[in-house]
Structure formats: C-alpha cells, structure tokens
C-alpha cells in the first residue's frame, strides 16, 4: 500500500503522454435542461443491465448517474497502476473479485461504444467481503446486485451524446461528448 504522505508543500507533476498534445483541453457540451430519474437496480441483475435496460426503455442513451449505497452479491473491480508496456501512462489491472460487497457510493457515466452499443464507466468506493474499504473502476457486467434494490439518481443528457472515441494523446479510447447527428457520422 502507498500510504498518504503528510507534506508541507506538494508540487503537481506534469506527465508526458505517448501521443501528441491536444490543444483543446476541455471538450464540453451543454443541454438547456437536465431531466432526472430515480432508478432502482434490481436484485440479481448485473450493474450494467440494471442501468442500461431501464434507461433504454426511456430512450436515454447518455447520462450521468450517482449510485447510492447497497449490497452486491459479487463485485469485480480494477485499479490503475502504471502500464508496464508504456503504451499508455496507466493500464487497468485484471479484474479483482471483491466477493459479497457493501457498495458505499459510486458514479457511472452512460454512453455508447464506437459501434453504438451501450457503455457504462463506473468508479466506486466499497467494503469488500474481507471487510476492507477499497475503491476503483467497477467491472459492471460481472457485478451482481444483491437481494435489495439499490437506488440510482440519473441525470440524462439530452441535447448531445457521450461516445467512446480513441484519444491519440493518452493512446486509449475515452468517453467524449459529441453533437447528435441524425446520420451518426459526426465523430470527431
């Protein structure tokens, strides 16, 4: 473990990424109004299905969500140490099994893959079956909701869409906001 360090003065480090520097540092889109929904993740469902299926029925494809506390029958997560191959600054670990897990709090972004399939990017803090408080990137397809529903606050993003696109600077695919195109051909 990397214990937090008490320091009188810290200096931010500027890391050198493998790709060309993109002069646009904030990619943003704005909607005139957000719509909010209260969603209940259903017992036995994966976190992925529990988020994506009800939102799809509401025709919501892009959203920012806050997942409140609850219990998972199993939960898988990854952490982000340095990439040993140096293709990117970091690389996710293989999934780590947390077992029966108390989910403390999390955020998830709902968007689309480059091939228009639903995508969920989720980070959370949780208490593992071994009673250790951990945090990281949640593998939503293999994390299964426990016996009680879990509440999620959904903020839908209606006037634009979130889609994964390859980011040359970091050399990995990342979720980015895009204008909605009727023809689906406006990818940046």
């Amino acid at each position, binding site marked *: 473990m990397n214990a*937090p360090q008490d320091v009188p003065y810290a200096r931010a480090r500027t890391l050198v990424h493998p790709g060309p520097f993109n002069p646009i540092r904030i990619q943003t889109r704005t909607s005139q109004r957000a719509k909010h929904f209260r969603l209940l993740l259903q017992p036995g469902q994966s976190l992925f299905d529990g988020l994506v299926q009800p939102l799809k029925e509401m025709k919501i494809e892009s959203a920012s969500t806050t997942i409140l506390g609850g219990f998972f029958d199993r939960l898988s997560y990854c952490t982000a140490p340095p990439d040993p191959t140096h293709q990117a600054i970091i690389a996710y670990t293989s999934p780590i099994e947390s077992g029966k897990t108390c989910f403390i709090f999390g955020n998830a972004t709902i968007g689309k893959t480059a091939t228009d399939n639903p995508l969920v990017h989720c980070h959370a803090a949780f208490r593992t079956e071994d009673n250790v408080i*951990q945090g990281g990137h949640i593998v939503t397809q293999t994390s299964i909701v426990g016996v009680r529903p879990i509440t999620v606050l959904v903020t839908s993003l209606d006037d634009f869409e979130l889609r994964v696109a390859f980011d040359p600077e970091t050399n990995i695919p990342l979720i980015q906001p895009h204008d909605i195109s009727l023809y689906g051909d406006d990818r940046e």
Partner: protein
Amino acid sequence: MNEHTPIIESGQMGRVAYARIAPNEDLVYGVEKLCLASGFKNAFVRGALGSLVDGCMQRMDGRQEQIKGPAVEIVSLAGEVRSVQDGSMRASLSGVVADPQGTVSGGVFVAGLNPICMTLEVTLEEWLPDNDPPQP
C-alpha cells in the same frame, strides 16, 4: 460566515454541462474553467469520475496530504462552484480517491495540486439563485 451570506438561498437548476477534461489539467481549476466555458455563474457537481496523477487533500492543520499515483482514481466527487464578489469563480470540491492499490482516502481537494492523469468526466448543473440578475 459573512453577514451578507444568506443561510438559505432559493433558486432553481438551469442548464447541464458535461465535459471531458484532458490530462495534466488541474481538477479544481478545470471545473472552474468548465463553468467559464459554459457561461455558468454558479453550479453543483452532479457526477464525476476519472483519475489524477497524484491526489492532494487539505488537512485540518493546514498541511497537505499527498496520495501518490499514477493513477489515483476519483471514485466520488461532490462540490459546487460559486461566483465571488471580487469577480472570480471558486470551486470547492471534496471526494474520495483510490490509489494504485485500491486503498481509499478522502478530503478536500487542494486547488492546483490535483493534475488529471488520463481523463476527467464531469457533469455540472447550473444553479440559478432567485435573487441573481438574469444572465445576458
């Protein structure tokens, strides 16, 4: 608390902005600049996730606590951005982070000392106080 600061401020939520903020930009200043880019005078963080090169939290004694990365994952973020009377804009952000081993820490993020590692995905919702003049 300043005597002119109301205890309760009525208002309503306005527009919503989503951003992907790029590597090496600062978390706190990046959220403030997102408000500038979106034309928001005041806003609440509605959701955020991403990673930091290193994390830096303010301690009660005024010292700083650094969480070494990369990457330090942001697992929760709460906060607001307020316009200040001197004409500036100030984000107050707190949250929970996980280091490369998954060990969690939490606190108030120090402005200028939380550079983004790979990406920050953040959603802000505009706050429109009832006593504020309408924006042009």
